[in-house]
């Protein structure tokens, strides 16, 4: 009995989570950093929204649209960044060689960094969402079930992009490290976070609707402005997420095998 399911051993995933727990629990500055950047953004968007609410009736009617957009976007970004950072920790430590000669499988390693991505995002976003409630009287949690669905959808896309970025860095080394911070911002203009997809030129709308975040943020606006839960948008987002997750995993595994082919697992590091 080894507790494996589909070749995945949960105890080895737990071992990797333990490794990351040790890093976080031993460094309060890292925990503060997880909260600091989202908090700064939330406060800025909160005051901007307060200012605009006094000028335009649209913002006054849907006060939380920008704040909710900012916090959901940041959740997406933090999940992707958390996945990539958890991977980079091993690169910086030159630990990949030790890990991949152990019984740890690449799929288990990938699952462990995905879980760490979510945990890191939650450590940052839960306090920030409570701060938004406290400072600006806006509760993200009033979206109820929809919030869970929006978060789950964004988490899946953050996983997909995050794991692909891990593969890219493994294959191309720390020279590709900036992809961990920059990759998600490539889609920000077409993610419809702060404005509807309809304001984009036609050709960009096609790109926007090929990405799950546009469905989530359109759905968020429908809920906050019109009070309608658009399940069609949610289903579209989840369907696309399944595709992107499959592509993200395939890219990671492909780059892992390419790294094995080129002997990159032994000497990677700072």
């Amino acid at each position: 009995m080894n507790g494996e399911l589909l070749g995945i051993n949960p105890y080895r995933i737990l071992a990797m989570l333990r490794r990351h727990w040790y890093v976080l629990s031993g460094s309060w500055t890292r925990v503060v950093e997880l909260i600091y950047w989202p908090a700064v953004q939330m406060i800025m968007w909160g005051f901007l929204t307060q200012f605009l609410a006094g000028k335009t009736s649209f913002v006054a009617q849907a006060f939380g649209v920008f704040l909710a957009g900012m916090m959901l976007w940041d959740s997406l970004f933090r999940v992707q960044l958390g996945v990539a950072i958890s991977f980079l920790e091993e690169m910086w430590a030159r630990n990949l060689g030790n890990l991949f000669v152990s019984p740890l499988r690449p799929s288990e390693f990938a699952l462990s960094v995905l879980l760490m991505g979510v945990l890191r995002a939650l450590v940052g976003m839960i306090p920030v969402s409570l701060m938004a409630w406290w400072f600006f009287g806006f509760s993200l949690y009033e979206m109820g079930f929809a919030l869970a669905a929006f978060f789950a959808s964004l988490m899946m896309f953050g996983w997909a992009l995050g794991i692909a970025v891990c593969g890219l860095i493994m294959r191309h080394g720390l020279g590709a490290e900036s992809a961990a911070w920059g990759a998600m911002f490539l889609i920000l203009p077409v993610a419809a976070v702060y404005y509807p997809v309809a304001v984009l030129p036609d050709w960009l709308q096609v790109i926007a609707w090929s990405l799950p975040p546009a469905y989530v943020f359109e759905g968020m606006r429908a809920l906050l402005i019109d009070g309608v839960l658009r399940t069609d948008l949610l289903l579209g987002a989840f369907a696309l997420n399944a595709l992107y997750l499959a592509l993200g995993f395939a890219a990671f595994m492909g780059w892992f095998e390419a790294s094995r082919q080129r002997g990159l697992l032994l000497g990677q590091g700072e």
Partner: protein
Amino acid sequence: MSAAPVIAVAGLTKTYGSAAAPVVAVDGIDFTVPAGGVTALLGGNGAGKTTTLAMLLGLLKPTAGSITVLGIDMLRDRHRVLPRMNFSSPYVDLPHRLTVAQNLRVFADLYAVPHPKDRIAELARDLDFTALLDRPSGALSAGQKTRVALAKALINKPELLLLDEPTASLDPDTADWVRSLLETYQREHKATIMLASHNMAEVERLCQQVLMMKQGRIVDRGAPGELVARYGRQNLEEVFLDIARGRGKAAEQATA
């Protein structure tokens, strides 16, 4: 009848670069490593030692050839054999921010070591680093790091231990201490050890078999004493220099 070899390698080849301009790192080598002994891979820089070890570990995919470790096809089924082996190298490190005990605990869990706390305490006692257990791994000296890396490599009591330059950058006292530890481990656990080294005295002391590599090929092999006698030299270092400088051609041909 002799026992099956722990490692059996046939036609192992690793080529980098394009088909038009291939760089051959390992060139069709064949060897076996018998159970319960220490075998050395010797050769100058770029001879193919680390590449060979990386292929044995599954970290590097061969271009051609076969590798059987502990009776299992490494190229098809390496995850079945990895729990029974381990590895240490100066080219890898343990996370610096984690303490020694935390690092060892993570690897104990990855290898499903029963009673991990007891095993870590036992290794710390054997390798004399109990006082370092709560220290961050990044704060250790080179000698201390080597001992902790060795503890990681022994955490699962491996049947096969692969070591890349196990005493590199150690002072003579610490290096001697590490060699004694390896001898004790090998004897007590009837383990098989394969190491790549530049230290000829170390190889003469520890190893029953030597594989001499040059430009990706095994150019000679045998027990250290046999090689020294065959080349008419005083010690293995002189044999190494003969081979490295191309003076061992006659002996190479004699064994071909």
